[in-house]
């Protein structure tokens, strides 16, 4: 079983199959997890589409499966995995993070308190927020 870590989610994939540097995932599951779905124009998320390189379709699409790692690398996003190929991180790209910060809209997140209850930044809309970080180390 393969675990895929993406943004704040962690999912055990029922369709994923690792093959060296390649990570094949069922296209429906991949779309649900990352928002990237395969269309005639290529891989699309929202307004953005990334065409599948002509002549290299087999690197990216195989039947109902898509190569998440190949797509990630094509977009310029980091993808890392453990030596067993059982845990994969589909990391956010610098361009995406930078573009987000430049809008000055504070990126939202959901994190638990000590009791395990989730809190979001956006639930405090309407009040000023001082987002302060600290650590025990």
């Amino acid at each position, binding site marked *: 079983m393969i675990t895929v870590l993406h943004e704040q989610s962690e999912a055990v994939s029922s369709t994923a199959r690792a093959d060296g540097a390649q990570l094949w995932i069922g296209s429906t599951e991949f779309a649900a997890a990352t928002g990237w779905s395969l269309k005639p124009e290529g891989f699309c998320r929202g307004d953005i589409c990334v065409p599948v390189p002509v002549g290299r379709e087999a690197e990216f699409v195989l039947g109902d499966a898509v190569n998440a790692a190949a797509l990630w690398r094509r977009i310029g996003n980091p993808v890392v995995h*453990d030596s067993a190929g059982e845990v994969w991180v589909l*990391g956010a790209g*610098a361009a995406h993070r930078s573009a987000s*910060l430049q809008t000055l*809209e504070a990126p939202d997140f959901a994190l638990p308190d*000590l009791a395990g209850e989730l809190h979001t930044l956006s639930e405090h809309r309407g009040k000023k927020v001082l*987002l302060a970080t600290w650590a025990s180390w």
Partner: protein
Amino acid sequence: MDVPDAARQWIEAAKPDYPCLIDCDHHVADLYNMVNVPQAVWIDEQGRIVRPPENAGSSDGFRSMDRTTKRMTDEQLAERERIKKGYMAAVRDWVANGTASEFAYDPASARQRLQLPDSEIAEAHAHFRLAQHLLRNGNRAEAAAHFADASRLHPASWTIWRQAAEKDATGLASGPEFWARVDALGDRPYYRPIDMKGL
């Protein structure tokens, strides 16, 4: 940016009346491109960044503490208090005065002061995320390798380095390796100076 067991005693001692959240995987550092603690972001009622991540009132005074006694001189302690109080006064001024506060950046200034991540920083966060996951699942050796990758790719990040580092009995990552890394900064700051008059 911590794990629950380590953070618990501090949260319980503080008894905060504001949410205190546990960010094991340092998502906030990734989202906001933070590199140290304490760093703070000012966010207004519309969810917009008013002051991008900055040193939240700390100073590099600790670098000259006596490393055997861990004591700071009265002057060093007073200076540390001055900066901390100065930062909090600025926060209160913003709370009271909003956009009219001299400490609130206009959007153009806020944008200018953003520190944007590059591809190595993005990759570092991916390695860190993997490392924390592997560590939680008991795979210490591989976790260590990915923590090392993360720090190699993002050497400016103290949050990555210290979260991964050996901790002493009190949970601090303040051993000889930490001090060596601090000293290796030379003239470069551990905490970037705060962009506020007098601080």
